[in-house]
């Protein structure tokens, strides 16, 4: 049994202007010790998925419409709010993007860490403090015993994110959800922070969901990947499958669109247009208007289904575009056009 088994999770936001289908029919499995990367652009539903698993969606306007979130066999969508509070922070923890705002600026680091420990565990102040210091040492904060009394603003961004990780991991959760944990950090600091997460995972078998838009981070950190677009999973599989045998047109285009250190072209491949408006129902393939493949059928039609192509490699694929030619030749043509 996987540690986390999400089945057909659908979350919407009911706004005055209409219903935004932020995450549709999301399914994912995660074992202990595994890292799942969720990749997508802003508005693709990757954060909404994580917040839904944690049941942190603001309701209203948000609503988890359907699905199951089986964590250790227990459906998190059915447990009481009190039980859920207990699960958060002990069994599942979350770290957020912005280390500047996710710590309370008015409280000492020690106060915030002791609070996090004592909410879930009976322990006196002294014991909790020494546990906090150990946790800070584990995430590589030098001189932790004296710096634990500092206020957040006395720490740099990278240090604060380490503190956040220390707090998130302090009760040895089974699952860590990291929502763009390194986006606000410099690359050298990012590397250190990712190392800390990896090290903990190897030592304690923590499962990690890493939400990011950075394909490089995914390549270096994750075992499995889900690519999301317009609230749907368009492709999922092992990291090598996604990077070396991408099947969906969006995954393929995304990889071509990022500048890399290795090669230098005169023009980058460009995904034209912008993502669809999720407040409007999407008929057929969500990526259709931006798909680089030659179109052979109109946009209308049944929404494509997620199909397992190879072992564990699922793709949402439509029959609206001519995919007989490999993506490289299709894109090469577009790139020369764009360069003119």
């Amino acid at each position, binding site marked *: 049994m996987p540690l986390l088994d999400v089945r057909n999770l659908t979350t919407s936001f009911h706004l005055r202007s209409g219903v935004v289908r932020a995450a549709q029919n999301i399914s994912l499995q995660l074992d202990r010790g595994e890292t799942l990367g969720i990749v997508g652009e802003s508005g693709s539903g990757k954060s909404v998925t994580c917040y839904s698993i944690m049941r942190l969606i603001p309701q209203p306007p948000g609503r988890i419409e359907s699905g199951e979130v089986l964590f250790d066999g227990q459906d998190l969508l059915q447990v009481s709010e009190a039980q859920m509070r207990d699960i958060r922070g002990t069994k599942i923890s979350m770290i957020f993007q912005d280390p500047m705002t996710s710590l309370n600026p008015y409280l000492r680091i020690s106060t915030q860490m002791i609070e996090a420990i004592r909410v879930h565990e009976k322990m006196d102040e002294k014991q909790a403090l020494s546990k906090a210091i150990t946790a800070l040492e584990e995430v590589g904060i030098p001189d932790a015993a004296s710096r634990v009394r500092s206020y957040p603003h006395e720490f740099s961004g990278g240090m604060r994110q380490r503190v956040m990780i220390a707090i998130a991991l302090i009760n040895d959760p089974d699952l860590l959800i990291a929502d763009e944990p390194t986006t606000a950090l410099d*690359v050298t600091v990012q590397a250190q922070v990712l190392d800390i997460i990896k*090290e903990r995972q190897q030592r304690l078998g923590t499962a990690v969901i890493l939400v990011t838009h950075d394909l490089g*981070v995914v*390549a*270096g950190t994750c075992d499995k990947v889900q690519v999301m677009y317009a609230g749907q999973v368009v492709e999922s599989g092992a990291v090598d499958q996604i*990077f070396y045998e991408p099947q969906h047109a969006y995954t393929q285009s995304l990889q071509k669109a990022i500048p890399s250190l290795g090669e230098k072209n005169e023009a980058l491949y460009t995904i034209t247009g*912008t993502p669809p408006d999720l407040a409007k129902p999407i008929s057929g393939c969500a990526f259709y208007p931006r798909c680089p493949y030659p179109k052979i059928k109109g946009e209308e039609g049944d929404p494509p289904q997620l199909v397992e192509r190879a072992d564990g490699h699922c793709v949402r694929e439509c029959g609206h575009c001519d995919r007989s030619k490999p993506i490289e030749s299709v894109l090469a043509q577009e790139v020369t056009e764009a360069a003119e």
Partner: protein
Amino acid sequence: MSDSDTALREDFLVLENVEQHFDLGRALLTRESKGVVKAVDGISLTIREGEILGIVGESGCGKTTLSRTIMQLIRPTSGRIFLEGKELSALSDADIRAERINFQMIFQDPYASLNPRLTVFTTISEAIRTRHPDVRGEALRGRVIELLRTVGLNPAQMNRYPHEFSGGQRQRVAIARALAPEPKLVIADEPVSALDVSIQSQILNLLKRLSREMGLTMIFVSHDLSVVRYIADRIAVMYRGRIIELGRAETIVDDPRHIYTKALMSAIPQPDPRAERTRERILLEDEPPGADKSPGKDVEDDLEEVTPGHLVSTRPFERRVKEAEAPAQ
């Protein structure tokens, strides 16, 4: 590169030992100086006409302060800045205002860089009239339409307000506004870091195309070496207010000499899982705390040419390599 290269000015923009120091003030009771932050600490640079210079560095290295100093949004503490031989740093505030049409800036956050109360048309026409105060009516409209097309926006939407556009489209509006006064120099400060990957490539292509087509000289500031590598002809790597390495983009990426550049490069994750598994990493010791506020020795121009056009700082580097290690697997 075209034949017109010969006509291009070699010394289009010249920085001579530019410094930008921020005084932290005095302590309340003791009146002791709290020190000076040397955000830009003696930078000398020469930029050729039509070239794209990338400036890379981590947060706090002074790259944003440098770009604002070149823009004369903050006047330099010392040093001189010449644009086409004219010394900007010596001009009075009023003269600078008249000179501003020649150098424009593209900002990071497309949500904050446009006045939310003005339509796209008003924003751009205002900017056009800084150079051509007499253009109005149909002629002005025609120019706005032309500019919007240049940056890939639909002119039919020019009466819309910024909030009615997506982030990528707003950045296009901001680019159109920067181009409106027909500047000779454009400074782009992290213009794509707030954008999604698919939009990012659109804007990068656009900037590159514009610079080629219009012969714009551009300074492209970013924390992302991969992005800079794609767009820039030359790259300057900044660390603590100084340039520590400067050279052609390929040279910097393929043959970095300074240990900091190497460490920086080695930290960038590549979208290639197999390469990632074997990637060698160079880790540096943490910065000594408070070093940025201590007065350092002023060494003028410590860059040494290792190969033609490739300059590396000869200053002793205070951070040592921790260990070169393969990533944990």
